[in-house]
């Protein structure tokens, strides 16, 4: 099943969230394995609060979800949203693939694209 990002606002949020290298790294990690914010914070040279902020941005974009586990909150990557974001990147390439397809049709005409 293909999951599409439903509206422009969602798209903006997802890309704003992914525009940051730390956040991209967090997403990659929690896609593989869920992790607590404190465990994530140990991996980056920044404060717990800063990492928590990054996670909150990712959560608002729907790229990660949080679940309570005892005293801790575990962060988990949302595969569907990430996949949809990847699809989005591929779309720009598709625009060019489509253009070249049309361009070739014009070149294939005996007149090289002159209208009769």
């Amino acid at each position: 099943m293909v999951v599409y990002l439903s509206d422009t606002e969602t798209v903006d949020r997802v890309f704003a969230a992914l525009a940051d290298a730390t956040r991209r790294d967090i997403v990659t990690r929690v896609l593989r394995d869920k992790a607590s914010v404190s465990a994530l914070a140990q991996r980056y040279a920044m404060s717990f609060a800063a990492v928590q902020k990054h996670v909150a941005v990712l959560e608002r974009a729907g790229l990660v979800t949080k679940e309570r586990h005892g005293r801790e909150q575990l962060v988990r990557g949302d595969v569907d949203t990430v996949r949809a974001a990847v699809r989005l990147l591929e779309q720009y390439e598709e625009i060019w693939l489509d253009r070249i397809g049309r361009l070739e049709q014009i070149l294939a005409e005996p007149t090289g694209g002159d209208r009769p």
Partner: protein
Amino acid sequence: MTVVSMTRDPDALTLTVVAELAAPPSRVWQVWADPRRLERWWGPPTWPATFVAHDLRVGGGAAYYMTGPDGEKANGWWRFVAVEEPRLIEFEDGFADDAGVPDPAMPTTWAHVELAETAGGTRMTVTSRFASTEQMEQLVAMGMEEGLRAAMAQIDGVLAEG
């Protein structure tokens, strides 16, 4: 498929498309130089492009609009930075407001088009360069909308066939 490669370099903010075309450079040049040919392939079938101006020389520009399925119009402009027939075109590509005036709030890309003669015809290399990651993302997001609209139109077509 004649697309040889598609290279996305997020650090350099470029997307490079290489295609092998079965026509000599002089004919490939025409699909860029002749606005009537250009508008047949630049926009997708659901958002066809109409070029109202096309002055292919250094310092010259082009103006076009794309018409959506509901009649809505999106305006764009090009400014030619380098023109060397029949092997090189470099231009800036941006969005314009309803009156066709370039919109500084909207992203601008640089396109570099090279046509090289090969045994089978022409190798066309198109490099798009974005000003920032955010801009690349903004354009990609717009591209997705365009793609989605095209897909939706196809679905509508199938439904209409019953």
